[in-house]
């Protein structure tokens, strides 16, 4: 039983975890540096777009590798996608209402 289980269950290596940690540290550094540069002069709102893109990338690394989503069954991955989808509905619907209120 336990042999069969260890075959099926993927165990990520410490090297992978250290690599992901290093990537997360680099991204943290980049997001602080990017925030100190006035990117809005090139394109209004570019600072927040860059900050959130880096945050989404960091969160994806944590979910995929630290939380093993990459090696999880499809059922679990569906739950993760569904939670992001519901979050998107909430943000998108609320913002579209809020932004369009002035369009009388």
């Amino acid at each position, binding site marked *: *039983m*336990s042999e*069969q*289980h*260890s075959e*099926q*269950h993927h*165990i*990520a*290596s*410490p090297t992978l*975890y*250290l690599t*992901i*940690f290093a990537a*997360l*540290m680099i991204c*943290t550094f980049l*997001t*602080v540096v990017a*925030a*100190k*540069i*006035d*990117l809005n002069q090139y394109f209004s709102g570019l*600072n*927040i777009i860059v*900050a*959130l893109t*880096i*945050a989404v990338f*960091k*969160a994806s690394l*944590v*979910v995929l*590798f*630290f*939380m093993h989503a990459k090696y*999880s*069954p499809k*059922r*679990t991955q569906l*739950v*993760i996608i*569904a*939670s*992001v989808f*519901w*979050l998107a509905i*909430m*943000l998108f619907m*609320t*913002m579209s209402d*809020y932004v369009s209120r002035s369009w009388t």
Partner: protein
Amino acid sequence: MHRTGELYEQYRTLEQQRETASLGMWIFLSTEVLFFAGLFMTYTLNRSTYPDIFSEASKTIKLSWGAINTVVLIGSSLTMAMAVWASQTGKKKALTWFLIATLVLGTVFLGIKSVEYHDKYVEHHIPGWNFQFEPGADAATNAHAQLFFSLYFGMTGLHALHMIIGAGLLLWLIRESLRGRFTPEYNTPVENIGLYWHFVDIVWIFLFPLLYLIDRH
């Protein structure tokens, strides 16, 4: 009742039993995503309504503490991931040490957070009767700055509460680990509390740029 990884009758294999526990944890975390999402939504709306005050108020919180805490918390996620690895590979001593390291880093995070809260207390930036954004600020500025700080304390406070609960769970894991309960066949509590800990890390990954990095140039 002590579970040690025996197969329950409703499952066909240990792997299926393990995946079911993990699925349940992920469904709980989905509800947590939406729990925090309400605050993130409120923040987004208010920030887009009062962009200038939010930017001014954000500049009064110390970027260095936020950046250090980001490093500390991601570091604790690394030690937690290593704890899960140690439990999967049957390294019992390493498991205990990685759990202790995670708890220590989590406590450091909360310690730094309390220093930050104290700074805000000294500066009269805690929403309430004694709130004053800066000397001579007009009523509207004070009101809108208070909105930022209410969200700052609400969001970081709810996050810190999750950290405190996580620290309690880690204490329990350390005790059970010292008893030698976790084996490569049975480590579901380590895995699931690990998932919770990483989730709390992800919340901070978004809080840090939104609260600390609005307008630093």
